[in-house]
């Protein structure tokens, strides 16, 4: 009986071993220069829960991320896996300072994708040095580490009043259209930009995307005024269909029945039956369904 119990115990112990052996072999594969990139990425993907349990091994993984001689795909996969672990590893907080320090080292990395992703992660953590770097790059383009539109987008994770000043400058004198749009998005809570957005919305020569952004900003900043503009735009037969559709959406979803005159209702009903634009007809239908008389 004792011999049977002993051999059962041995079988159990043997059954436990493979799991521990696998984790060790995955760690070894991650660091091994003899494995292919694919094998190393696969080994990494099997580690997320264990990633932060061993600080020494975690720092080895961070070293891969910092090592510009490693392949881009391995470094990017490493970044994603560490980021994934940050969502769940019970003791990730212990590893977080080293993780953030590594991200800061990547903000001037030669790999643009890694740079942008590291900057994004730091910006979302409200990292002060990252914000200063992004603002600096906007003020002096020769020092920029990412394109201006990307810098503006990342600054949107932590809006400060000093960001408004730069965004206003870029909105007025943009290096490119993408940067202008991102600057306008940032200014969506800037009360000083209301006159600019009002002029933009009413300018039929302005780009449609900018006018729609203006509508969105005004709906947040001066909602009653935007509702008034929207009513005028909808009843203007010469205005752009997409701007009209955005206006109708604002009236339907963010307006109220008390402001819907008979003239407006009839105007929208006419759009619903006669417009050649599918989007405009759809938004008119929603309006009529909500304010049906």
């Amino acid at each position, binding site marked *: 009986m004792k011999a049977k119990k002993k051999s059962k115990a041995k079988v159990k112990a043997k059954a436990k071993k493979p799991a521990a052996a696998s984790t060790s072999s995955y760690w070894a594969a991650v660091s091994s220069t003899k494995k292919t990139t694919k094998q190393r990425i696969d080994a990494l993907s099997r580690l997320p829960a264990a990633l932060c349990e061993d600080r020494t091994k975690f720092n080895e993984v961070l070293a891969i991320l910092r090592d510009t001689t490693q392949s881009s795909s391995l470094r990017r996969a490493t970044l994603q896996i560490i*980021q994934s672990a940050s969502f769940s590893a019970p003791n990730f907080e212990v590893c977080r300072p080293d993780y953030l320090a590594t991200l800061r080292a990547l903000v001037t990395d030669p790999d643009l994708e890694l740079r*942008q992703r590291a900057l*994004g992660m730091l910006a979302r*953590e409200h990292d002060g040095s990252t914000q200063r770097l992004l603002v600096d790059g906007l003020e002096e383009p020769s020092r920029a580490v990412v394109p201006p*539109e990307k810098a503006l*987008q990342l600054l949107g994770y932590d809006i400060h009043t000093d960001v408004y000043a730069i965004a206003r400058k870029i909105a007025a004198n943009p290096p490119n259209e993408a940067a202008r749009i991102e600057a306008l998005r940032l200014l969506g*809570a800037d009360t000083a930009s209301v006159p600019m957005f009002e002029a933009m919305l009413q300018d039929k020569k302005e780009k449609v995307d900018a006018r729609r952004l203006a509508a969105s900003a005004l709906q947040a900043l001066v909602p009653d005024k935007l509702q008034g503009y929207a009513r005028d735009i909808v009843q203007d037969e010469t205005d752009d269909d997409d701007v009209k559709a955005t206006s*109708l*959406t604002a009236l339907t*979803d963010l307006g109220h029945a008390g402001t819907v005159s008979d003239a407006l209702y009839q105007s929208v009903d006419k759009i619903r039956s006669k417009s050649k634009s599918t989007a405009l007809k759809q938004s008119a239908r929603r309006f009529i369904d909500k304010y049906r008389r």
Partner: protein
Amino acid sequence: MNVELFINNSALPRTRYIGWAPSPCSIHLSNLTGVTGPVTVELRNKPPAKGGRFVFRRTLTGPSTTTLRLVLPAKGAAVNFFMLGQFPHASFADRDAVVQVRSGAHVLLEVPLMVRIRKNANLLGTAEVSRFVAAFATFNNQGLGRFVDFRNMHVAASSPEAHGAPGFLPWHRAYLLDLERELQAIDPSVALPYWRFDQPAPKIFSLGFLGVSNSLGTVQFSATNPLQFWRTDGVTGITRRPLFNTTTSGASVITEAQTFALGTQYAPFSAMEGNPHGNAHTSFGGSISSIPTAARDPLFFLLHANVDRLWAKWQRLNSRYNAGQLASFGPTGTNRIGHNVNDTMWPWNQITAPPRPSTAPGGSLANSAVATAPGSKPRVGDLIDYQGVVAPAGRVGFDYDDVRFA
């Protein structure tokens, strides 16, 4: 002679929403003029049943039938029974299912209701998408609405309440339930859909639904989509850059089958917090890829609805509804606060003394017209028996389109 029908213990229209789990109902005679004795009635789905379908049970554990014959006492006493959605026939619109009560050939009463179910977002109809985005946009109200509280519940300071410990799944289940109930206060026909992240989802990532990302990662919406007015933290719009082709592939996650294979006990199964959950988040650049900002993107809630659906499906596969069993939750009593079966959960417990976060946005968990559980200050364990399998009073009032009642 009339009859009155109570669904979810009420005759009010706002309670006429059922799922796959049995809803308590009753019926009684009212206006007893001309009533000389007991009256036999038959309840059924009014044909043609084009939308949701339902069945009846005379008792909670009895067989389900498509019609139910009841004898109603002459003096008006109520007769109890149960109604439940007939799996998998969920409604497409509010009140598209009708209970018809007949006495012989005479129709005494017709009551419209909805079999309201959380569905795969990529398979929703146009009207369903429209109602959902409209309700969500109204809830956000250009950054001024109650959604601010939900955004502020999921930040770096509160992360220990919700991540990295056994309460991860129950906390997020409560979070989604609270949000869904708020959406239902705006439009009761809305149920939170899920993003099946291991499959392509081109309809979700479209201009009319959760938007299409440009090369920068700024999400674009059609001119008819009210989400174009979405604002969080004072900034218009959503930043989301897929690192995979949303039209042709799923996110970089393990499959559903691989998720269930993590283990039949809760402890190993909860490793899904890393993959597929963490991997789904980090299959993007942008807000959804970091804990402090993830809830700024409405996609977050559909992502977590799928995480929750995976847990619900795993529960059914393994009969894991009893919070007192190790297999259903794992060791308890020595975990971090907020992660033991009997712990109340922040922010709904409104506790702001250490080690809890210093603020508790949002107040108590929203009430529901269709269920009393899990209460305004739920405990971790209250979210495990979500269908009321172990205790009928534990039913919280949601179901998934591919997870039938246990």
